[in-house]
């Protein structure tokens, strides 16, 4: 009889050691949510949704830093060359972030997520909004920095004008990603669409910035955004019928 077996015989019959260990383990293994997560949990009224939000790949620190760096480079390029690079790259960067916010293309436990009480659509909505807002804020900061560094002229329309195209690009990316169940497809679709738009605008009016300054384009952009959002919404419903 070894020490372990001798030990087991020693335990008083009415003491439940496995219950004791579970009490210890619960405290030792517990994860303490950070302040941001607790705040998000209160705002969203769902700790699960907060946790899902803060584990979004495109909201992780590394990704955020990379986004900020790209936009900062754009701001620097803008102030040196006068071409508003920030306006042109912000929508593309945001689209990439949105594609990696969600879904079957990036969630290895996708099937399981579809059976959760916190529905995958809610998670998508919250993540997409968060990524969009973050990218908008970073983009605005970059634009403001470029303006402060002294580019002239119609700074305002270029500083803010890209927000509407960004919305359209994000919606398109999301629609493609949810329909194709692949983040890569989403990114490809979004980048391709934006590049084509920019080039088309450039060949039509001779300026790169046409796509972000031409106010006639605002309505088409918003219409595109609305349609793509509807497509993404439809693509994320619980499949019924024959799909």
């Amino acid at each position, binding site marked *: 009889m070894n020490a372990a077996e001798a030990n087991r015989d020693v335990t008083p019959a009415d003491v439940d050691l496995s219950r004791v260990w579970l009490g210890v383990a619960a405290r030792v*293994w517990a994860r303490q949510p950070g302040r941001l997560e607790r705040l998000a949990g209160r705002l969203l009224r769902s700790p699960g949704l907060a946790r*899902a939000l803060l584990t979004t790949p495109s909201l992780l620190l590394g990704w955020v830093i990379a986004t900020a760096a790209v936009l900062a480079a754009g701001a620097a390029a803008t102030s040196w060359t006068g071409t508003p690079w920030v306006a042109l790259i912000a929508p593309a960067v945001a689209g990439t972030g949105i594609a990696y916010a969600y879904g079957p293309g990036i969630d290895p436990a996708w*099937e399981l997520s579809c059976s*959760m*009480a*916190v*529905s995958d659509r809610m998670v998508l909505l919250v993540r997409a909004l968060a990524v969009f807002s973050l990218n908008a804020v970073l983009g605005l900061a970059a634009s403001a920095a470029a303006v402060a560094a002294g580019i002239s002229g119609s700074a305002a329309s270029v500083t803010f004008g890209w927000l509407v195209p960004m919305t359209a690009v994000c919606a398109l990316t999301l629609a493609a990603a949810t329909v194709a169940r692949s983040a890569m497809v989403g990114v490809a679709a979004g980048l391709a669409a934006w590049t084509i738009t920019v080039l088309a605008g450039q060949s039509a009016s001779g300026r790169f910035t046409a796509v972000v300054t031409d106010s006639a384009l605002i309505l088409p952009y918003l219409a595109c955004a609305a349609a793509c959002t509807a497509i993404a919404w439809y693509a994320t419903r619980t499949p019924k019928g024959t799909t």
Partner: protein
Amino acid sequence: MNVEIAGVTRRFGRNLAVAGVDLETGPGVFGLLGPNGAGKTTLLRMLATVIGPSAGTLRLLGRDPASYGPRREIRRRLGYLPQSLGYYPGFTVAEFVEYFALLKEMPPAGVSAAVATAVERVDLGGKARAKLRTLSGGMLRRVGIAQAIVNEPELLLLDEPTAGLDPEQRVAFRTLLRDLGQRATVIVSTHLVEDVGAACTEVALMDAGKIVFHGTPAELTARGEGRGTGDAPLERGYSAVLAQARS
């Protein structure tokens, strides 16, 4: 009755995966047997509210999963282990189980205790804070079982849960099943007939989208007497029923 389904069918395009299934079951362990492609996974996905039926009615835990509110209530009381469950490599075992406990809207105060209980029940107590990427296939399967049981579900759906488990672990798993089946409806889909015989109180055999047998393991064994092929009595019953259904 935790599960009541009537005339449920499911098509994918032209493919008829589930061709009219009627089932009613209460607490206990229910085995779902059948060859690959019989429609077991599709049926389980419908029970897990991941997809809806093409036709027929479904009532789970006394609720209709077609509407958002009741579906959410069902999902809070549901445990599901899909056939292939991916994992988040950077998460630890405890973090993974906790993540899904939160997504099942468990009250936060009880989550850490529930996670500890679930992790110990699948015998991963020594690996609770190990990263998932360091675990073997069998251990990952047990992590999957742990997340399925963390919220003490009333309806537990397990699709091929013993894949990758060694014989000793399978025995432990069957004990766990019997334990869980005391209060909950546990539906285990498997093509390993021995898994079923040992733990299940009821068995259904599916082939080509239909249920071709529904009864106790003993009744299935009886069907195989003198007729079926296989080493074990239950296997003979299984093959006899299939042969009959296909003739």
